[in-house]
C-alpha cells in the first residue's frame, strides 16, 4: 500500500475541507432520503452500434500513468465518479465485488475520479466498507469525461475486448447482480 502514510500527513486546512465534504455528503444522502433510499437498479443499456472507446492516459493515486489501451484484450468496466456523489458511493462496493469475482477471467474495473485530490480520495476509499483494489485514476479537469460525453455522475461504460463501448448506465447501479454478470459473461 504505497500511500498508507499519507493519511497521517494531512495539512490542517485539508482536514477542515474533509470535514466539510463529509457534512456535504451527509446532506446529500439525507436530501435523497437516507431512510427510504430506493434500491439501485441493475441494468446496463446496450450501445448500438458499439462505439470505439476514446483512449486516454491518466495518473493513479501514486502518480503512475495508465492508458486505457493498456487493458486491450480485457473486458473493462469504466466508471466516472466522485466522492461527493452519493450514488457513486453506494455502487462502489458492488463494483469491487464484481471485480473480485471476475478479475481472474479478464475483467478490469477502472474508476475515473472527477476533479478531486488523490489525498482526499485515498482517505475516502479507506472508509469504505469494501476498499477498492481496482485502479482509481484522476481526471482532474474532466477532459476524459468530456470525451465520453458524460452528463452526470456516476456514469459507467462496459467495454468489450476490442475496446468498444457495448453498454452504458447513467446513475447508480448494483453491479454484482446476475443481470450485469450475464453481460460480462457474454463479453469475456
Amino acid at each position: 500500500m504505497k500511500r498508507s502514510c499519507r493519511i497521517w500527513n494531512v495539512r490542517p486546512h485539508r482536514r477542515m475541507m474533509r470535514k466539510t465534504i463529509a457534512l456535504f455528503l451527509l446532506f446529500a444522502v439525507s436530501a435523497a432520503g437516507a431512510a427510504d433510499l430506493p434500491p439501485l437498479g441493475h441494468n446496463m443499456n446496450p450501445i448500438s452500434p458499439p462505439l470505439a472507446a476514446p483512449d486516454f492516459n491518466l495518473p493513479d493515486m501514486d502518480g503512475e500513468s495508465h492508458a486505457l489501451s493498456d487493458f486491450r484484450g480485457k473486458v473493462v468496466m469504466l466508471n466516472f465518479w466522485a466522492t461527493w456523489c452519493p450514488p457513486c458511493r453506494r455502487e462502489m462496493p458492488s463494483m469491487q465485488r464484481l471485480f473480485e469475482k471476475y478479475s481472474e477471467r479478464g475483467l478490469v474495473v477502472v474508476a475515473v475520479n472527477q476533479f478531486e485530490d488523490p489525498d482526499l480520495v485515498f482517505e475516502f476509499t479507506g472508509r469504505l466498507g469494501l476498499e477498492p483494489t481496482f485502479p482509481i485514476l484522476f481526471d482532474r479537469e474532466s477532459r476524459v469525461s468530456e470525451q465520453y460525453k458524460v452528463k452526470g455522475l456516476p456514469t459507467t461504460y462496459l467495454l468489450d475486448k476490442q475496446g468498444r463501448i457495448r453498454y452504458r448506465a447513467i446513475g447508480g447501479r448494483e453491479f454484482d447482480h446476475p443481470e450485469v454478470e450475464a453481460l460480462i459473461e457474454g463479453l469475456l
Partner: protein
Amino acid sequence: MHRGWAKTCMALLLVASGIQPAVSEQDGVTTSTDPDTGIKRWKFAADGLDIELIQVPPDFIRASYSARGLPASVSEAVATRCVFGTIVRNVSDRPLSYRVADWRYVDAEGVERPIKTKSEWLEEWHGMGVRFSWSILADDPTFAVGDWIQGFTTLAEPHGSRVSLKVVWSIEGKRYEKVLSNLECAPAPENDA
C-alpha cells in the same frame, strides 16, 4: 456565518437520524417537510418521469464548493440563487429525454422565466479558468431505461421565494409537461436575513 453553519449541521444530523417527515399530496405532487430541519422536498412521478426537488441551503453550496477549492465568485453566484437538488429518473420502458432550456419557472409576480442551464454555468466557469464541470443538473440528457441523474436546479430568485416549476420531457417524440406549484426556495441563513 459560524453559528448558522453549526445550526445547519445539527439540523442535518437530525435528518440523518431517520425521523419521519410530515407528508402531504396535492395534484400528484408529494410534499414532505422534515420536522427537525424544515428541509422541504417535492416528488412527482407519472408518464415515465420521476422527479424530486429538495431545498438546498446556501451554506451547503458555499461549503461544498469551497471544499473543492472553487473561488468564492463561483460559489456565491450559485449560493445566492434559489437552488433545488433535483433527481430525475426514467421510470418508463423507453428512452426519455429532457432539455432544461425548455423548462420554465414562474416567480411570485407570475412572470415566467427561463432557467440557467448547466451549459451556461460551465461557459461562465470555464471562462474564469475554473474547470469544474459538476453539481448542476445535466441540461439535455437522453436516458435509457433505468437511467437517472441528480444535480442542482438554479433559479434567479431570492431565498425563501415561492415559485412554480414547469418540467418538460419527451418519450419517443411525445411531449409531456407538469407544473409543480408552490415550491419554496430554501430560506436565507439567519445571519443573512
